[in-house]
């Protein structure tokens, strides 16, 4: 429900386009999307890449056991018609679709599901989807090379799979991204698959011009009746915001992700204002503090950092309002987000007082590792440094590549860093990153250890009642806020410009560019016939 409220409030352009949504979707036409996060797709094997860039095309080409439903703000079954839960919430028996055909015309079966999950756990490949499949009993043993097949996966018949989990979790949160796409077991093992991928998605592969575009055409045997609507989808790689702007204004593309500067420009342009859609994505931007670096071991110092930074000013002036103020770890669109929570106010005097109490009346100096990222990198660090300086804290910048940053964070080789971390859609998974049993190399980047926090999270994990679980997660989130292992900066506000002739755009809080393409359609005013 909250998801809907936020989506309605945030989806300005979509609301304006509401009358068009009421029209009957038109068959045919070409959807021209853009991939804005780099100059190439990493690979045509979506199991190997965790970049948001690659999932843009993968949503058209592939399908996973679940799919993200943006309207409901949760994952729903996609390749299965039914999930029967037993064994205290640990055993899930999936009745698979018997009408899902791969693009080579073969029907998907239970073997393909089992083969795909076993492939992802290959312990010599570091497939990023392993983090999700690991929740199946016996998956970790395959990863470690102690077993050849995941013991927790059983084929009951061609269209029934039994999945035994290690914990009482909602598997939907783990099996909806393209990282866990179901591949055709026979074809995917061939070398040719890497050049001409075959999936279960609404569009089949036609052409890849590396560094420029991927083109796909309608798969007529897609299992959702009447879908997809469009004949063709072209995803063009356009990393440069200014170039996307020209192409969008020139009506050469149907979608364009907007950065802070364009966000302001489009809002102030009468012709373009109505094209904007925005959503609070499940990413939290923050400065992580290393607890083994002495001043940061003290909670008062970490809190002082939160008081010393005028976060609202940075969001309004530097990020141009293209972010939501973070009030703790869980983002606005999380089902466990607590609206009653208030952010740390800007209070340098309080920060100084806390520093004095902690034994740092004259402040201290630390090294701040950052990438160049415009939304959560060097520009933000540069704006924060004078604010910290006011309370006596000197920050020395250490700039590194974004690609190296994640390695530095995982190894703990930092005093402080600034980053953007996925904090949803599953609030339990997001908060579990701070459980003392989660290694730093996984996602406990601040090496947070707190017995009380562990206890609450363990209780939440065992709670069958949704309301009770949510209450416990809110409690854990509040504790985290008080402990302040990070400077809580913002939750990303994803903004996309959408041409008026493109309909059906979903406000996907997990990543706005990831659209269920079968629901998109273009009307007759589209210049691409």
């Amino acid at each position, binding site marked *: 429900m909250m998801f809907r409220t936020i989506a309605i409030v945030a989806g300005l352009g979509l609301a304006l386009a509401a009358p068009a949504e009421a029209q009957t979707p038109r068959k045919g036409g070409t959807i021209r999307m853009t991939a804005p996060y*780099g*100059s*190439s797709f*990493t*690979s*045509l*094997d979506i199991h*190997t*890449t*965790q970049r948001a860039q690659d999932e843009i095309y993968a949503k058209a080409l592939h399908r996973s056991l679940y799919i993200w439903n943006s309207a409901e703000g949760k994952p729903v079954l996609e390749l299965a018609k039914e999930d029967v839960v037993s064994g205290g919430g640990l055993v899930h028996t999936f009745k698979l679709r018997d009408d899902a055909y791969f693009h080579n015309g073969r029907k998907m079966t239970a073997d393909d599901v089992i083969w795909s999950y076993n492939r992802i756990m290959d*312990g*010599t*490949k*570091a*497939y*990023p989807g*392993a*983090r999700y499949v690991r929740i199946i009993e016996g998956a970790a043993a395959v*990863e*470690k*090379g102690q077993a050849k097949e995941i013991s927790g996966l059983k084929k009951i018949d061609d269209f029934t799979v039994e999945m035994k989990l290690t914990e009482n979790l909602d598997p939907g949160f783990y099996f909806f991204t393209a990282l866990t796409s179901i591949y055709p077991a026979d074809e995917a093992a061939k*070398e040719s698959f*890497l*050049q001409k991928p075959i999936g279960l998605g609404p569009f089949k592969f036609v052409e890849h*011009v*590396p*560094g*420029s*575009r991927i083109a796909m055409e309608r798969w007529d045997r897609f299992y959702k009746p009447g879908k997809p609507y469009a004949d063709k989808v072209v995803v*063009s*790689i*356009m*990393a*440069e915001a*200014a*170039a996307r702007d*020209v*192409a969008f*204004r*020139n009506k*050469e593309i149907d979608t364009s992700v907007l950065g802070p500067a364009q966000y302001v420009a489009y809002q102030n342009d009468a012709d373009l204002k109505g094209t904007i859609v925005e959503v609070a994505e499940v990413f939290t931007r923050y400065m992580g503090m290393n607890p083994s670096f002495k001043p940061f071991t003290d909670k008062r110092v970490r809190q002082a950092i939160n008081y010393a930074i005028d976060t609202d000013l940075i969001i309004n002036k530097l990020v141009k309002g293209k972010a939501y103020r973070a009030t703790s770890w869980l983002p606005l669109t999380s089902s466990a987000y607590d609206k009653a929570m208030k952010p740390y106010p800007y209070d340098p005097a309080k920060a100084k007082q806390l520093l004095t109490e902690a034994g740092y009346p004259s402040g201290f100096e630390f090294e701040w590792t950052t990438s160049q990222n415009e939304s959560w990198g060097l520009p933000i660090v540069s704006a924060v440094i004078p604010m910290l300086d006011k309370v006596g804290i000197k920050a020395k910048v250490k700039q*590194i*590549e*974004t*690609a*190296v940053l*994640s*390695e*530095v964070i*995982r190894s703990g080789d930092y005093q402080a860093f600034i980053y953007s971390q996925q904090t949803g859609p599953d609030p339990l998974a997001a908060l579990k990153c701070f459980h003392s049993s989660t290694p730093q*190399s*996984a*996602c406990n980047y601040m090496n947070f250890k707190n017995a009380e926090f562990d206890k609450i999270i363990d209780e939440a994990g065992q709670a069958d009642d949704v309301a009770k679980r949510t209450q416990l997660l809110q409690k854990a989130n509040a504790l985290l806020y008080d402990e302040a292992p990070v400077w809580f900066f913002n939750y990303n506000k994803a903004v996309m410009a959408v041409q008026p002739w493109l309909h059906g755009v979903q406000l996907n809080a997990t990543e706005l560019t990831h659209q269920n393409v079968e629901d998109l359609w273009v009307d007759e005013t589209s210049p691409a016939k």
Partner: protein
Amino acid sequence: MLSFVIRRLLQTIPTVLAVVLMVFVLFSVVPGSIVSSMSDDADPQVELRMKKQLGLDDPIYVRFGAYIAKLATGDFGTSFRTREPVTAMIAKRAWPTLQLICAAMAFAVLLGVPLGFVAALRPGGIVDTLAMVLAVSGLSIAKFWLGLVLMYLFALKLGWLPSFGYGDGGPKYLLLPALTLGVSPMALFARTTRAAVLEIMTADFVRTARSKGMSEARVVKWHVMRNALVIILTTVGLQFGGLMGQAVVVEKLFSWPGIGSLLVDSVLQRDIPAVQGSILVVVLAFLAINLLIDVLYGVIDPRIRYA
């Protein structure tokens, strides 16, 4: 001539080896690995196994030896990311880059050289002044900005050309990126040509030719142009190498599927075989163009001997 070409080809071997070694060592010491670029929570054991499988846990000299042995057979290795042979990846990207550079160079030579000639024939005149203003502007304009201006003008305002993309690789898609890339060398060629022609015009042998009663047209054709071309050719050769580097910006801006964007992405993803292969191809192309230029010297001016 043939012995000169063979000798030059042999001379390139140490250059290529030095470049290969430099790139190899560089990517062995820079932080970041293929595993961390693939997954941010890879099991440490998986990381070790993957490094072993990719041969990344061997000492650097063993890896370098294995790489050189492969190179000797024409095998550039297999991409860590796409698992494609690097040669196949480069082959897909080489043609668009070649198209882009050749079109940019053609524009630069066909406009820049005549402009420099005309400017030098009437130094201080209106044409000269205009040509040099154009040249200075062309050299100082940032490619990124110029590309955006051209997009804005020819795509958005006039609607004559697409603003981005490769399309079918035809001229419609090639024009704007080539123009963006070609303006700077065009300006350089205009300046170089002007300077070369002015210098030759005051040379003793030109004065002698004139004093012998040779017409101005013949002086320009037989003495000035031929001698200036050697200098221009050298600049053209060097610019080819420069354009390969500058193409990265243009490729990214126009979503042009060339080697530049392959190289940048491979570096960011720590796809070492793809990085090594891309750099090697760029270096080889640069050396080949310079060899071709050296050969052309002799064609233009037979006095140049390949002893």
